[in-house]
């Protein structure tokens, strides 16, 4: 199976490389419309809060009417892109390589994107969107999967992910069973692998996305032990916020988006990147290989790399901008915004990418999917 997948992948990548000769050299007029698949809260036009609007200005300037379809998981994004009919997708690292391998997205000509020069050098040539020197899209935002905790339970911030992985009593004296959550997606296996990388160094885990069979089994064992502790496997940001509020969830993997939302709601929560580090996501705006509105799409990619837009998105989503100038370029984000959201944590983050077999050395993503469904079901 793994050999088969790799051969197929190789063939697909080769043909994608051959295609790339035909990069557009200049842009035509906008087509008047743009259809984007995005994470909830990523593309705001001021409906939720008037101040947070980075779509209206784009529509006025370019005449491209923006339609947004939100997706809750990376798998859903890949599925929507497969169905087609969209121009852009804000793909995370666990979707981007699959989109490239499946030829759902096309490489772009960065010379046509004026704001490309603003890009954070740390994100340039990221393995999750640059394949064989072809650039598949523009970085949009990044952020860690933080550990969200209840400040009434934890008087001092927890320092380790063990509070969600291992059975133990929390500082309030009660066990963590039924008071922690885990992410409802196979990529969460990497979170467990990252934890084991520090706590069981004898396993020799290098990257949480490249696990040998032996390492993989140890990780699954940890997740099986974790399952009885889990209150709910979350994938819906709103449901998680309600669980922290009403159901007494004390610690969980989460995003800055929920932390900001709950704090704005005056809930006693805070977040931390524990000593083991954290997995994180770096999202890329990618262009569909059969995009109907490529000119509008290029204009959006350019627009999205402005410091002000980047800063506003980061402020709203609790994420970090792909453009360092945004840290000082947005009133909404404020002077301390980048620091609060963890701009300096870049090196502590293992960015999501799709696990690949690489010739049978590592356990591929298809097994991650099957096994994680089984573990969530208690097997």
């Amino acid at each position, binding site marked *: 199976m793994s050999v088969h997948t790799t051969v197929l992948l190789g063939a697909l990548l080769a043909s994608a490389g051959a295609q790339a000769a035909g990069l557009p050299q200049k842009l035509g007029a906008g087509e008047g419309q743009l259809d984007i698949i995005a994470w909830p809260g990523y593309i705001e036009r001021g409906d939720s809060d008037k101040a947070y609007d980075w779509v209206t200005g784009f529509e006025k300037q370019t005449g491209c009417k923006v339609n947004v379809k939100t997706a809750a998981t990376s798998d859903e994004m890949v599925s929507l892109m497969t169905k087609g009919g969209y121009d852009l997708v804000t793909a995370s690292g666990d979707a981007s390589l699959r989109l490239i391998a499946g030829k759902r997205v096309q490489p772009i000509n960065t010379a046509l994107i004026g704001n490309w020069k603003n890009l954070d050098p740390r994100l340039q040539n990221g393995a999750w969107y640059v394949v064989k020197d072809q650039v598949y899209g523009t970085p949009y935002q990044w952020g860690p999967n933080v550990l969200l905790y209840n400040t009434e339970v934890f008087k001092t911030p927890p320092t380790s992910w063990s509070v969600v992985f291992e059975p133990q009593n929390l500082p309030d004296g009660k066990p963590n*069973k039924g008071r922690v959550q885990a992410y409802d997606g196979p990529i969460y296996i990497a979170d467990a692998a990252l934890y084991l990388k520090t706590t069981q160094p004898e396993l020799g885990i290098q990257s949480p996305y490249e696990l040998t069979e032996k390492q993989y089994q140890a990780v699954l064992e940890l997740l099986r032990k974790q399952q009885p502790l889990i209150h709910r496997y979350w994938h819906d940001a709103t449901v998680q916020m309600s669980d922290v509020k009403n159901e007494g969830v004390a610690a969980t993997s989460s995003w800055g988006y929920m932390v900001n939302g709950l704090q704005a709601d005056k809930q006693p929560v805070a977040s931390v990147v524990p000593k083991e580090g954290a997995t994180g996501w770096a999202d890329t705006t990618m262009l569909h290989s059969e995009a109907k509105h490529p000119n509008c799409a290029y204009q959006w990619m350019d627009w999205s790399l402005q410091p002000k837009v980047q800063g506003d998105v980061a402020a709203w989503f609790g994420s970090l901008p792909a453009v360092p100038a945004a840290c000082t370029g947005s009133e909404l984000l404020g002077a301390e915004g980048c620091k609060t959201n963890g701009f300096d944590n870049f090196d502590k983050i293992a960015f999501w990418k799709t696990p690949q077999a690489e010739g049978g050395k590592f356990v591929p993503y298809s097994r991650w999917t099957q096994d994680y469904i089984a573990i969530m*079901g*208690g097997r």
Partner: protein
Amino acid sequence: MSVAVATTGTPLRRLGNLLYRRPNLYLLMLLIPPLLWFGAIYLGSLLNLLWQGFYTFDDFSMTVTPELTLVNFAALFNPANFDIILRTLSMAVAVSLASAALAFPIAWYMARYTTGRTKAFFYIAVMMPMWASYIVKTYAWTLLLAKGGVAQWFVQRLHLEGLLQLLLDIPGVGGSTLSTSHLGRFLVFVYIWLPFMILPIQASLERLPPSLLQASADLGAKPRQTFMQVVLPLAVPGIAAGSIFTFSLTLGDFIVPQLVGPPGYFIGSMVYAQQGAIGNMPMAAAFTLVPIVLIAVYLSIVKRLGAFDAL
């Protein structure tokens, strides 16, 4: 003369005569549209869906290729997937039994002790919950069952926290909190499907002639004997009809399992995840076969028990 008129009349008249002389043709023309609808659109799309179950899905690029394989159906029996089937099946059986037990007294009262306005009131009371959106009701239940919610408030007021904790500790029934327990999910299912059970039972009890009960009493049967040997056998078709609804609706549901109850997929949520999120249409199609088979088995069992003899 009249024959000549009939054959040389206007085309419409000739068509009319043809149809008159060949009644089967007339019947066929009337039946073709509904048969086409049923055959092509209804059965055709269902078979097409099941056919997709034989296609191959590439896990990495997440694309479907029309190479035929039995892998998807075989995968239904691997332990994780079989767990999903068993989990859904046991919930469907429990929900059907509980709905029948709850619905019978209500249906009995509606059928035998209400007339006119009170009967109308009961009809409306039973059906009114069905007029509200199903998703709103389920979300409302998540709030009712939450730790700070109404249900737990009553439990605290009655000082039954210990009992609740005891219930939640039973494996297969409980969970970490009421809203993430099997019990909570069961309560929501029973609440949502109950009207589908009450109405068929009520209809079958309405048709039960009071004279049979009188005859049974005259012959010296005790109330219990009358119930077991006269009422219940005649009500079984209604219970069977109702249980087909509660059973199949639970088998296919994916919203309640997602919002209420412990981790672990149901058949419905698995189909939703495979098709909606992962795009693995072949596996989703293979899973769709499961409720079809289960309901076919269920119907044949019910038929053997004699549920349809009275139809």
